[in-house]
């Protein structure tokens, strides 16, 4: 595969990278990414038009229910394998400041697949994601968002018992006079648009790809 791609145009290489990500071919992605480095192809473009494009196609397949969580996770593994190879070769000039999202599962819950999917999709959409993990106390969302200068705070839960902790994050921001500095988005099984409005969050999405659209829209407003 490597030899073949050496004779291909950069555009073909990007396409192959994208195809290998959608095709869940982690080894293939790694080989192609190394080929891109050997040929001196612009790493940023290879990431953007190859890896990110592949992950975004995987996201579409997820939305149309051709892919499910297992497929999406393996695509993400392939994307990250490629990123590991390509990121060190990004030329400084071609990196633009990425908007930051602080994400985590609120305290009292350890279900993190939904959060991980959103994180992957945000990563692939060019956001810098600060992942606080699971079982995160409300105050930590606030502290980390301030420390990292984030635009967006993304809160996830699968358990109704932890929904109050989401409201608590909004309250803490308000009490600290920080509410206007951040956009707060919420998601997870028991969450609804109505709940999001009631606690004063800025948005809700029922799915991971939808969450990325929402964050893009809100981060645009915040910028």
């Amino acid at each position, binding site marked *: 595969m490597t030899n073949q791609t050496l004779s291909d145009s950069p555009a073909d290489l990007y396409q192959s990278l994208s195809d290998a990500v959608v095709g869940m071919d982690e080894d293939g992605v790694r080989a192609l990414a190394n080929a891109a480095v050997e040929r001196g192809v612009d790493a940023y473009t290879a990431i953007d038009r190859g890896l990110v494009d592949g992950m975004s196609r995987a996201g579409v397949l997820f939305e149309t229910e051709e892919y499910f*969580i297992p497929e999406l996770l393996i695509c993400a593994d392939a994307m990250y394998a490629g990123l590991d190879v390509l990121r060190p070769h990004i030329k400084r000039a071609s990196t633009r400041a990425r908007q930051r999202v602080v994400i985590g599962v609120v305290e009292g819950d350890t279900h993190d*697949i939904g959060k991980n999917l959103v994180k992957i999709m945000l990563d692939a959409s060019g956001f810098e994601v600060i992942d606080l993990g699971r079982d995160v106390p409300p105050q930590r969302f606030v502290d980390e968002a301030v420390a990292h200068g984030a635009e967006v705070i993304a809160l996830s839960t699968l358990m109704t*018992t932890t*929904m109050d902790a989401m409201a608590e994050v909004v309250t803490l921001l308000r009490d600290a006079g920080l509410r206007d500095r951040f956009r707060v988005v919420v998601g997870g099984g028991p969450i609804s648009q109505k*709940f999001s409005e009631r606690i004063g969050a800025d948005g809700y999405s029922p799915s991971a790809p939808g969450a990325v659209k929402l964050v893009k829209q809100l981060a645009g407003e915040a910028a």
Partner: protein
Amino acid sequence: MTPIERFAAYGRGQPIDRLPCVPIVGNTAARVIGVKVSEFRGNGRLIADAQVAAYRRFGYDVIRVFTDLYTQAEAMGARVHYPEDETAYLEAPAIDSADRIGTLRPADPRKDGNLPHHLEAMERTVQAVGHEAVVTGALTGPFTTASFLIGTETLVRMALKNPAAVHQLCGIALEASLAYAEAILDAGCTPSVTDAMCSSTVISPKQFQEFGFPYLKKLIGYIDSRGRAVTLHICGKTRAIWEAMADTGAACLSIDNDANLAEAKTKVGDRVRLMGNVPPSEVMLQGTTAEVRQATRRVIAQAHDNPKGFVVASGCSLPVETPFANIDAMLDAVREVGWPIQKEALA
């Protein structure tokens, strides 16, 4: 009518006073007797007291002895965290990689983890109200227990990369489920099966066919052979797997609010009874009593004419803090609609 009389008459097509109704009360039962949820841990007598009191307080038709989905996985080494007054959650799986599957042993329901306490709770509940109400014992499906044993992300990755290991793990989980099912039946209860991770919100219908279905079919087949009708609940989206769920031999499918009852009726209603699906969080926990009544009438309108029958229920277990008034409102709405069901009553 008692719940048992109501179900019997309904099954024979004879007159009933109202449709059977099951707001799925789990740890909310702690609120009924004023104890903390964590007090249920290792205390079968208290679980039974709470479940019996909740049944008497609300007057629903099926008692489900249930605290969380992790009991079987916990009895095989998974670590469960028990907050003081909230539902327990999985802290860490029993193993972290496929090469450790061989170290797992099926749980002994009489000895391991909290299983003996849950069995005691089931026995006591049956003794107290088994003559009038249907008492079921929560049984987690093999694929879902497998996910708690090795971690969900690890399991679903293995589904694509190492299917043989998934089968090995599900085989062990099945063995444990069969032993627990037998003990539940011996306690005088009917196992009620939940296989949350088989949801099409998580794995594909094809993966369900490969990794969920065969084990569910064996498990439900066994319970069926002991003469008990099984209710199968799978959370989230399930439309693409309803046929397969019916093929497991389940008598009743409990449908989550992420799926549509009217569609389920069209697709599998001539094969299985349906149960569902008032939203547990948005309506039962957060809604007003008026919203609960409206949602209850809506699900009745969608499925009361299901050929194999319909049980008005919440789409999943109720959140702990569900207001009592909302549980009452669900039952009140079902009583008001009454039987036989007139279209005007559903407006």
